């Protein structure tokens, strides 16, 4: 791991001091439109989401379940471009909330890894979460993130060996992303039994904060996950607020309500 300081580290330090977890809320850029996604993300911040994870829509999202697939399809059908994503990041970062970016690898490789890192840093983004990039293939990104002072979050899974947990965490800066279940994104009625085990295995090999995602959809689930993780990452449940709504205003209202419920949850960790 590089000794550079993390862009998102201060937010984790503060949450830790407050005895709570951070709430990370995900939304694809350009869903339902570029402006609509900026409005949604700002509403999330206003309602208590600590960190926004902006997803770059991709044509072949193999880690994602039906909700994020649909939202990505809508964004792409609306013509969203990678450079629009940077505009969304800039607009949301202006609220003062840290903005991380989740992306499949090909859009970044196609943009140019160093060029994207440069433009992401200029837009005020903190770094990347890369669901289909493992450290072994990340040489160019390791160099570019060092050069532009960006965080990098790789994923770990219940199936990761101890050796891979250590290796992967050693390549992260900012936080590590623990996928709580073996499966794709999507809210589930039960959060996983495997997640706390995975997090405690991670604690053996790293001091970095750990975010847990995949499956959280209610305040109670957020409180459960906050009991053992440093960040609770929520995607599909928030996105569904907009997908299921009959109009924009009711979608934003539902999004605010769920954000507030989740924000409450991460402040009452089940310990």
């Amino acid at each position, binding site marked *: 791991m590089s000794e550079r300081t993390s862009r998102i580290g201060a937010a984790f330090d503060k949450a830790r001091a407050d005895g709570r977890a951070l709430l990370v809320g995900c939304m694809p850029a350009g869903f339902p439109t570029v402006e609509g996604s900026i409005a949604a993300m700002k509403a999330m911040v206003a309602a208590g989401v600590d960190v926004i994870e902006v997803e770059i829509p991709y*044509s072949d*999202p*193999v880690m994602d379940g039906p909700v994020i697939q649909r939202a990505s*399809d809508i964004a792409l059908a609306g013509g969203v471009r990678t450079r629009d994503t940077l505009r969304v990041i800039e607009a949301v970062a202006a609220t003062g909330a840290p903005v991380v970016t989740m992306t499949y690898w090909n859009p970044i490789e196609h943009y140019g890894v160093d060029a994207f890192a440069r433009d992401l840093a200029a837009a005020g983004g903190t770094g990347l979460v890369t*669901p*289909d990039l*493992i450290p072994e*293939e990340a040489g160019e990104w390791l160099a570019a993130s060092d050069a532009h002072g960006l965080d990098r979050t790789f994923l770990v899974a219940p199936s990761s060996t101890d050796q891979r947990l250590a290796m992967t965490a050693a390549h992260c800066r900012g936080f590590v992303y623990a*996928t709580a279940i073996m*499966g794709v994104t999507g809210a589930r009625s039960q959060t996983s039994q495997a997640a706390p085990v995975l997090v405690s295995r991670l604690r053996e090999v790293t001091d970095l904060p750990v975010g847990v995602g995949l499956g959280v959809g209610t305040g109670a689930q957020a409180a459960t996950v906050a009991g053992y993780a440093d960040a609770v990452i929520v995607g599909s449940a928030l996105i569904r607020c907009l997908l299921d709504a009959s109009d924009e205003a009711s979608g934003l209202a539902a999004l605010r309500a769920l954000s507030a419920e989740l924000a409450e949850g991460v402040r009452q960790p089940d310990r």
Partner: protein
Amino acid sequence: MSADATKSEVPAQLPDAAGHFGTFGGRFVPEALVAALDELATAHQAAMADETFRDEFAGLLRQYAGTPSLLYEARRFSAQAGARVLLKREDLNHTGAHKVRNVLGQALLTRRMGKRRVIAETGAGQHGVATATAAALFDLECVVYMGQVDTERQALNVARMRMLGATVVPVTTGSRTLKDAMNEAMRDWVANVDETHYLIGTAAGPHPFPALVRDFVRGIGDEARAQCLELTGGLPDAVTACVGGGSNALGIFHAFTGDPQVRLYGFEAGGEGMGTGRHAASITGGSTGVLHGTRTFVLQDDDGQTRESHSISAGLDYPGVGPEHAWLHDTGRASYQPVTDAEAMAAFELLCRTEGIIPAIESAHALAGTLAIAPKLAAELGRQPTIVVNLSGRGDKDVHTAGEYFGILDKE
């Protein structure tokens, strides 16, 4: 036949330990799949080194699939081509294509890993039918993902898979075709990886799939090389194949990569023509990128979003290609050229009429490419060239498409 004639020289072994062919290949996958890919890579290595496994695989290919397939001298087609054309008759294999070799190998590997369930993606349904066949033979649960557009176009193959006991899941996301079926198979695999093997249908995807599939189909070239030596007393001047994901082409190329005098040609689907943008030629019409777990040539837009491919041949209708082909192209060892729908269908008709063989439309691309290169090769060599063509499959599945194309179906 001398003993050494049956063995070809294998060049420096690729991929490397991490699955790279030069800058291509590798693993661009969710971490959740890495353990399963490692398990598979270990099982693959161990199996290839295990004589019992190799014997069992060879026995199945012989007794069940009907290999070695013939190398047939197509005299009347040759006269039209201006070349001595030898057809590697993979169309005569059980299930009608080279694909049976790959599925039998992977089914054996599935059993060896102690898994009870296989999943597969399919476009036209050929790989799905082959997988369902092997699953029936090995008593494995089988789920096949197929784009909804394809389940509608290929209703007969859907019925075949069901007859063989497989569950066919129509995929309704994205473009609802092969690439989306592949996404859905990956999603299933992430969720069920403990008991499930993803029986991928071509030499693409994350490491070790490209190497593993190649190893299971490379018997095509080993056989063809020995058969050509026996039949003609020498090696061919060229070996040709169609390239979708690339399995039949790698299967026949591999035995010849150490023979520098043998030219290797891969023919991609040029669809309605390269100028129209409606094609499936990833190498000749795409650019480097990452798709379905591997770095290779991809059809993509300016933002790295995958573009839809187009081809009259469902089996070639894929916007990527196996990474070893990207490497063979990069190093110049093999050359790749597009063949349009129209050129392929003309060659399809020519083979029907000259030889009484109805080829798969995929394989017709190899025939058309062969017709295109033969005169140039003859001029270069100053004599009639000998060309081995991989006739990767039979055309039964394509009768409807071809009948419509030629306008020979009776109106209702």
